[in-house]
């Protein structure tokens, strides 16, 4: 690396790498130069003139956002001349800006408001009529109010560069420029809302949050998105026990400010009118509301009775409940109910990957690796549609570090556009496709391989062998579907494995086998919907379901217990790359209880509470950290809201991973399993309806 450049900003000595922009160099010493069009990570625009600074020996003020540092440069950012210039820039921006602050959604967190407050261009010399253009609705998500736009083009750039969609453009020139959507009067895009959040003013507003409240009126709760496996942090704005909006403007969490439509707007299932708020019991063939104490007592009675005569229990766990709940459920099932018939919907072959990587260190990729490593190979997955944040990381890596991206898929994917090489294969031909890239991959210095559910069982071992043959450091990601699919595996929600991938050495039934079994006496389903696509053979089995909605499975239940959503409880979840993060309680739904508490209360009513321990998330997590391999993660990171990477198992896993049971449900941007059916927002966008 070249020697750093030395310069002075506001009297402070700064050392920065050659090529650094003055606006970034100033940040190194804690000086914030105001900017509208400059945005970290996006291409330069130099459109707004807000960042003007005084540079010694330069005849005029210069734009700090496009000015590279130079040796001996002396920069001043807050002189009277600079303040004056900024004030006039603001006066210009305000010439046609409506006096909308009282009704504008951005009021209170608007960058233009803040700047005017700071530099005071409150009085305008412009007295002509302002040009008014009506507000436009481009989609159920995106609204555009032209007169408020300050033409910084952040939205255009985040959509084309960040999202790889390019749905927004600019029409006309000069003062009458406008932002325009890609289909005349409407948008057809990812509906991610990135453009809305990045807009410094209230020109782009969102369908869910519009005119509802004010930023200071909400509690801001940073929790983890409950939809896909990527584990983005989403900050929920909660008012009166109701979620009003989701975003991540504070850029906390692994995803920075990235969120897809599900993380940003898919929270609305929590107050869907069909949400269950009272336990239901089957009386004369019909489900009727019952009190918690009656319903729990009935469950406990049945469980105790079947347990006493060693009857057969089947337990199906969830892909979106917390690690604590999963651990507690399997502990209850295995040690109290004495059954090994416990399973969940498996969507990726993590087991074989961990086994194949046994004895190596640093072979499991994190989400940050996808942004930092020099090359990425995507095998058999449409990341932009199914793993939106991972795709965002790879795109950012390509833009910022010129990463080489290799794609081996059946169909065209968005990553093709940034790929160094693309191989189209037939179904099942993925491995052959990967082998055809061997020569190219050998020239790389490092690689991350991301693979979908078409690579499972032996194919995973072959892929790892291929990785080893390249002679470069390779990291892997086995893709899974839902917010805690990975945690369900880690916590042993499978018959053949205990928590931490310890073999259970005891045959148990899988989901399919439980549904096929005619002798099953009790089926206990926690946050899953297996009967959506299959029927149940055991006609007389007693079915207990913990759910948020009356799903197909809940309709067949004898007792339904209303569960709290991930946004209404605490606990930890593990994302696709094995990063553990903690949930925070936002709103609450009257009548529903967290699954952990429900399981605990069943144990209590059976008189067996001591056998499973307290149903307090923190206590259970302590036990997980102490006993589950890979989960002795630093508590400081978890409590501070960070993401801690789980350790590799590093030991052979002597079981068959059952590749026949692994299949991804391939949810796209607008679906999210059963949960997605209850989100009005996901159902309202036209892209979702077409898909």
């Amino acid at each position, binding site marked *: 690396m070249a020697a750093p450049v030395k310069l002075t900003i506001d009297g402070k000595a700064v050392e920065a790498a050659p090529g650094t922009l003055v606006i970034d160099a100033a940040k190194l010493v804690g000086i914030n130069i105001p900017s509208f069009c400059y945005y970290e990570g996006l291409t330069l625009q130099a459109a707004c003139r807000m960042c003007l600074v005084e540079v010694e020996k330069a005849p005029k003020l210069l734009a700090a956002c496009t000015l590279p540092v130079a040796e001996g440069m002396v920069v001043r950012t807050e002189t009277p001349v600079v303040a004056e210039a900024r004030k006039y820039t603001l006066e210009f921006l305000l010439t046609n800006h409506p006096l909308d*602050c*009282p*009704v504008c959604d951005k*009021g209170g967190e608007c960058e233009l408001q803040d700047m005017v407050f700071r530099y005071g261009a409150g009085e305008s010399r412009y007295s002509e009529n302002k040009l008014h253009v009506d507000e*436009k609705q481009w989609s159920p998500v995106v609204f555009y109010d032209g007169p408020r736009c300050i033409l910084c083009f952040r939205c255009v750039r985040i959509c084309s560069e960040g999202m790889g969609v390019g749905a927004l453009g600019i029409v006309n020139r000069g003062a009458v420029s406008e932002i325009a959507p890609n289909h005349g*009067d409407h948008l057809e895009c990812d509906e991610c809302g990135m453009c809305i959040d990045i807009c410094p003013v209230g020109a782009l507003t969102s369908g869910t949050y519009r*005119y509802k*409240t*004010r930023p200071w009126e909400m509690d801001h709760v940073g929790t983890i998105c409950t939809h896909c496996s990527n584990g983005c942090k989403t900050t929920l704005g909660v008012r009166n026990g109701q979620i009003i909006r989701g975003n991540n403007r504070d850029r906390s969490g692994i995803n920075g400010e990235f969120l897809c439509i599900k993380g940003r707007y898919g929270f609305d299932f929590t107050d869907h009118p069909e949400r269950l708020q009272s336990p239901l019991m089957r009386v004369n063939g019909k489900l009727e509301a019952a009190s918690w104490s009656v319903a729990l007592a009935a469950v406990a009675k049945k469980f105790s009775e079947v347990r006493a005569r060693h009857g057969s229990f089947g337990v199906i766990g969830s892909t979106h409940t917390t690690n604590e709940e999963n651990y507690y459920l399997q502990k209850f099932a295995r040690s109290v109910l004495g059954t090994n018939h416990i399973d969940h919907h498996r969507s990726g072959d993590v087991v074989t990957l961990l086994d194949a990587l046994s004895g190596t260190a640093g072979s499991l990729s994190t989400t940050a690796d996808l942004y930092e490593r020099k090359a990425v190979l995507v095998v058999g997955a449409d990341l932009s549609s199914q793993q939106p944040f991972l795709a965002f990381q790879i795109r950012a890596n390509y833009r910022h570090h010129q990463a080489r991206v290799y794609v081996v898929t059946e169909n065209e994917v968005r990553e093709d556009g940034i790929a160094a090489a693309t191989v189209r294969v037939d179904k099942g031909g993925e491995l052959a496709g990967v082998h055809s890239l061997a020569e190219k991959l050998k020239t790389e210095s490092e690689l991350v391989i991301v693979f979908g559910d078409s690579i499972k069982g032996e194919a995973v071992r072959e892929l790892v062998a291929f990785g080893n043959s390249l002679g470069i450091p390779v990291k892997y990601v086995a893709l899974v579907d839902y917010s805690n699919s990975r945690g369900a595996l880690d916590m042993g929600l499978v018959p053949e494995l205990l928590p931490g991938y310890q073999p259970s050495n005891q045959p148990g039934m899988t989901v399919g086998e439980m549904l096929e079994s005619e002798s099953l006496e009790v089926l206990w389903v926690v946050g899953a919907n297996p009967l959506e696509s299959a029927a149940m053979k055991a006609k007389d089995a007693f079915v207990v379901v913990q759910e948020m909605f009356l799903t197909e499975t809940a309709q067949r239940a004898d007792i339904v217990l209303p569960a709290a959503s991930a946004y209404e409880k605490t606990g930890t979840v593990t994302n696709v790359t094995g990063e553990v993060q903690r949930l925070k309680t936002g709103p609450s739904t009257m009548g529903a209880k967290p699954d952990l508490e429900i399981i605990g209360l069943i144990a209590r009513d059976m008189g067996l509470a001591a056998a499973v321990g307290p149903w307090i998330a923190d206590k259970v997590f302590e036990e997980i950290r102490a006993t589950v391999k890979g989960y002795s993660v630093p508590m400081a990171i978890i409590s501070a809201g960070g993401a801690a990477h789980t350790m590799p198992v590093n030991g052979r896993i002597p079981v068959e991973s059952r590749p026949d049971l692994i299949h991804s449900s391939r949810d796209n941007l607008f679906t999210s399993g059963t949960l997605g059916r209850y989100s009005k927002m996901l159902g309202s966008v036209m892209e979702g309806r077409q898909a």
Partner: protein
Amino acid sequence: MPNKIEEILETAAAIAKGMSVTFKEMMSPTVTENYPDEPPKFEERFRGVHVLQRDESGLEKCVACFLCAAACPAQCIYIEAAENTGAVRISGGERYAQAYNIDYSRCIFCGYCVEACPTDAITHGHGFEIASFNTSTLVYRKERLLAPAPPGARPPEIFTEAPSAH
């Protein structure tokens, strides 16, 4: 016995002085009010129970900006905002207050809310008889705070037109 005479004269002077005050007050206008037998009189700037104003066309002036609630040191203003549509038009701006409550068990009549309001929607009226045995009756809803619509008020034409497609 000059002392006795002096004493009598002094007493008479004192009585005359005292009575002069009494007679002067008897002649000057009364300031004491006969409340509650007669209605009290207020200075214009008296800060009493709030009134939410309407504009000349009868639309509510409040646009649910929450600034009064933000300014209120007693945190006694509660607002829920909603959007005006072609069919339902309540205020002159893009949005209106669907709920607007002031909790008079907490309000200290400081006037900050009035100061903060960008649309002059919230004002202090002269109402003051709000004592109650039941504090829950002290939360006044919008309906109770709103000024009556001016006689003959009609929403302006531009709002009654069918919304144009763009």
